[in-house]
């Protein structure tokens, strides 16, 4: 797992609130407007693919959208962190181990992300820290927590 230099990616506005991404000869679309960080998942990680951290370019009410894709930029999972009338600042991202990283964004807590080798069953609206929003699905391909 390693961070990519922003200059290694092509990021362009797509439909309102989303961006077109091009990297390594692949192209895809992710939610969010400003690329905060991009991570490539390599052989030692649970899966090979990409993680994109995007914000909405609304400095006073920013939300962070995290998108996990496979190596071909096909979306596998997505989560958004934020709440109305609150803003966050993406800071200090750090690789913590294979498939694991942490960062600061909001709520004065360190956020920890772990990529799972395969999608696991999960109920909507439960199991995530407060302020995390996910699409209505019964599986997750990465977890978020603020405990450790």
């Amino acid at each position, binding site marked *: 797992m390693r961070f990519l230099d922003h*200059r290694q990616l092509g990021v362009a506005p797509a439909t309102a609130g989303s961006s077109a991404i091009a990297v390594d000869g692949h192209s895809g679309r992710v939610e969010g407007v400003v690329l905060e960080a991009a991570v490539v998942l390599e052989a030692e990680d649970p899966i090979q693919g990409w993680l994109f951290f995007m914000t909405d370019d609304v*400095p006073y009410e920013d*939300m962070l959208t995290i998108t996990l894709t496979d190596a071909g930029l096909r979306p596998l999972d997505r989560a958004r962190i934020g709440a109305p009338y609150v*803003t*966050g600042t993406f800071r200090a991202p750090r690789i913590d181990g294979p498939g694991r990283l942490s960062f600061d964004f909001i*709520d004065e807590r360190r956020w920890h992300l772990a990529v799972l080798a395969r999608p696991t069953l999960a109920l909507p609206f439960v199991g995530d820290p407060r302020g995390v929003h996910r699409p209505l699905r019964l599986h997750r391909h990465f977890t978020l927590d603020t405990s450790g």
Partner: protein
Amino acid sequence: MASTLAVAPGTTDQNAARSEFDRTVEILRADVAAAASHMTLDGAARATYDRLIRGFSEQTRLEVERGGLTWTEAADRAHRLRNMALDAIRGRSTAVGRAFAEQLKAQGRSLNELIARKTLQLFGADADFGRLSPAQRDRVFAAIVEAAGKSNPRVTAMMRGLSVAGRALLVVSIAVTVYTVATAKDPAAAARHEGAVLGAGIAGSMASGALAGLACGPGAPVCVTIGAFVGGTLAAFGASMVF
């Protein structure tokens, strides 16, 4: 005669069961009306917020164009006004809406951080605000004034959806109330009863939501929502017993 005696107690049971069912439906309707009121009020607060921050940003920009402010002063003023609008609008949200907004502590950006970020966005990854020309610096400050007038469109869309749903539920609640009153044997008594139950449900829900906000502490949306629901139910139940 024997068959009459056998039927009579059953009719009484049926009447009691019917009465209990009607009361449950009434309380449910009061809860729906209370939820609809929360949604409508929070949607209205959001619309006010959007108008307020757009207005502040636009006014500030116009003052610069008239020569009343420099862009540096404008950016500082827009930054302060935006934070004031945020505090003001939280005060106008319902207890449930406020709890959702306060569930996370903001980790906002200082004016200096905004300047650094906008510098990079406008002039590239290697740009340094200190090395920008006065005209370029003004572009950075102007971008901050513009940003102060923007709210998150995802949140606005969600709140607009909630507001529309809330108003639709309120219309349905009122329509059912009107129908119930119009078809009652004693419309005046039915109107008093319906008004008391719905009113108590809404008022009870608002008051108990606020109390739950105090009891659960700031940023406890689940606790406050449950508190508002329980309070609305109890108030509607009490009103249905009294009226």
